């Protein structure tokens, strides 16, 4: 039979397949060029970007946990100026849509970063990370409060003509409530999940392993929670969804598609296998071919539940 049609579109961003790289796990793309073909996947999402360069947290910043890992990088990044001058040019020459993940330490910063990126060639869309504290308001996390999240999304929406993807935090009682809030505020798509907050302890030293004490849990361990949240949101919100969380292979990825995701992101898997994103895209296509499923679109939300 002929090749399955793996192409999908999210908020106007056309992708050759549903596989994206998750922010913070794929650097600025170039780091993986020796290990895979960057033009074999659907889209690349860059490391969380802020207005000014960000130092990030002291070390240790990462630790392995059962079936997962904790990270407390602290959103270290080069800042918008260096991104535009040093990182973006390389990405502009790769024939794969680039989505810039951004965040702000204050509400205003979100708006500024968004507008600074608005004019930029080769930025196909924005992914807004709301899983970070508002330094102005005693560190309450934007992504755990519907009002705060809405303000962020509205402001970003106002400051860009590019597609706005909002990335949801799983550390909430009701992810559907957060999803609806972001949808009402003008989000074009939703990506979920970000990491679950956890800690690891060094028993002998009687200290947390991470200098930051808490970190974000990622990897296979969180897959069941991620699938559940994607499924809940897909049932209750009309926006296209990008599924994230513990995806290690094509079968994992297709489970998220069945649960209602239009595309997926590969995060921690890229650390285990730097060509994971390309491999997963190939594994997904091979599955469709084997089962004689003509197009990936027919699997989106096809879970019988």
């Amino acid at each position: 039979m002929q090749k399955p049609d793996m192409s999908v579109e999210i908020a106007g961003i056309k992708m050759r397949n549903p596989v994206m790289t998750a922010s913070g796990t794929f650097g600025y793309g170039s780091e993986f060029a020796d290990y895979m073909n960057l033009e074999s996947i659907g889209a690349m999402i860059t490391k969380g970007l802020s207005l000014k360069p960000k130092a990030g947290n002291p070390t240790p910043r990462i630790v392995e946990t059962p079936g997962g890992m904790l990270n407390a990088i602290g959103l270290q990044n080069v800042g918008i100026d260096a991104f535009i001058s040093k990182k973006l040019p390389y990405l502009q020459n790769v024939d794969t849509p680039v989505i810039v993940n951004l965040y702000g330490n204050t509400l205003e910063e979100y708006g500024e970063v968004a507008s600074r990126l608005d004019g930029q060639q080769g930025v196909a869309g924005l992914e807004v990370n709301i899983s970070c504290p508002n330094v102005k308001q005693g560190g309450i996390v934007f992504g755990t409060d519907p009002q705060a999240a809405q303000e962020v999304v509205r402001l970003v929406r106002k400051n860009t003509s590019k597609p706005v993807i909002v990335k949801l935090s799983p550390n909430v009682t009701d992810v559907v409530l957060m999803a609806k809030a972001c949808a009402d505020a003008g989000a074009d798509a939703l990506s979920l999940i970000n990491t679950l907050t956890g800690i690891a302890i060094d028993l002998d030293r009687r200290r947390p392993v991470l200098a930051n004490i808490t970190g974000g849990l990622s990897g296979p361990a969180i897959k069941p929670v991620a699938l559940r949240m994607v499924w809940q949101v897909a049932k209750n919100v009309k926006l296209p969804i990008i599924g994230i969380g513990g995806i290690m292979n094509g079968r994992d990825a297709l489970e998220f598609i069945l649960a209602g995701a239009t595309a997926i992101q590969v995060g921690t898997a890229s650390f285990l296998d730097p060509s994971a994103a390309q491999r997963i895209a190939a594994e997904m296509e091979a599955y469709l071919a084997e089962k004689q499923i003509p197009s990936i679109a027919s699997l989106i939300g096809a879970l019988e539940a």
Partner: protein
Amino acid sequence: MQFKSMVLSNVELSPGYFRMRMTAPQELLASSPGQFLMLRVVDAIDPLLRRPFGLFDVGLFTPEYAGCGAQCYAEILYKVVGKGTKLLSSLHHGDLVDLLSPLGRGFEIGPSGEEKILVGGGIGLAPLYYLAKELVKKGEKVRLFAGGRNRDDILCITEFERLGVETYVSTDDGTLGDQGLVTEVLERHLGSGMRIFSCGPTPMLKAVALLAQKHGVPCQVSMEAYMACGVGACLGCVMKGANHTDENPDYRCVCKDGPVFDSFELQWS
């Protein structure tokens, strides 16, 4: 580069210390001493992350090995400290592992004619053997200062001597070589016209760096940090550069900017 390689041998040299030889692609011959590999012990989620190990040796097979397909081999010298290395020590001839290598920035050999001083603490010796081999090939004069807690931590000295390297061994408890810290022995021999290449626990590296500075001897150190990606993407393995401040952050990735640094590149506080 990412490749599968076959375990050829995996031998316990002294309690808890293993030397493992694996097949490797020809391209690995282009690696330089001080570079490392990231090894995936099992194709499962426990342990999840790759484990970094320095290149202990890389070379062409001597004919008698020619049977096994590959023409090139890589070796690591490792200490069993936790889950991953314990599992690693259970691998047999014929088992396959997935590798990323060569990774990072290796040692800069520097002008010839100087005395090349290698300083290794415990398992820190690992990358120094590959370095010594290359230096000797170039006809350099090489001395090795190897330290450890006790005699079991002193490895492969004969291998170094077979290369013609002059070796100085010291142990904290005096069970082998001089009693005392490797840096004490080192200081007695430091002089001009030397260049230090050092690998071991961070406190030792700090002491070596200070000694080097005091005697005006250029010094490179090979650092360790927890790593996830090994390719400069996750920013998990960073260290503060000499001029790092929170306003002007200057973090260096051990996996990409290192693991080998000039001692003055780093903030030692």
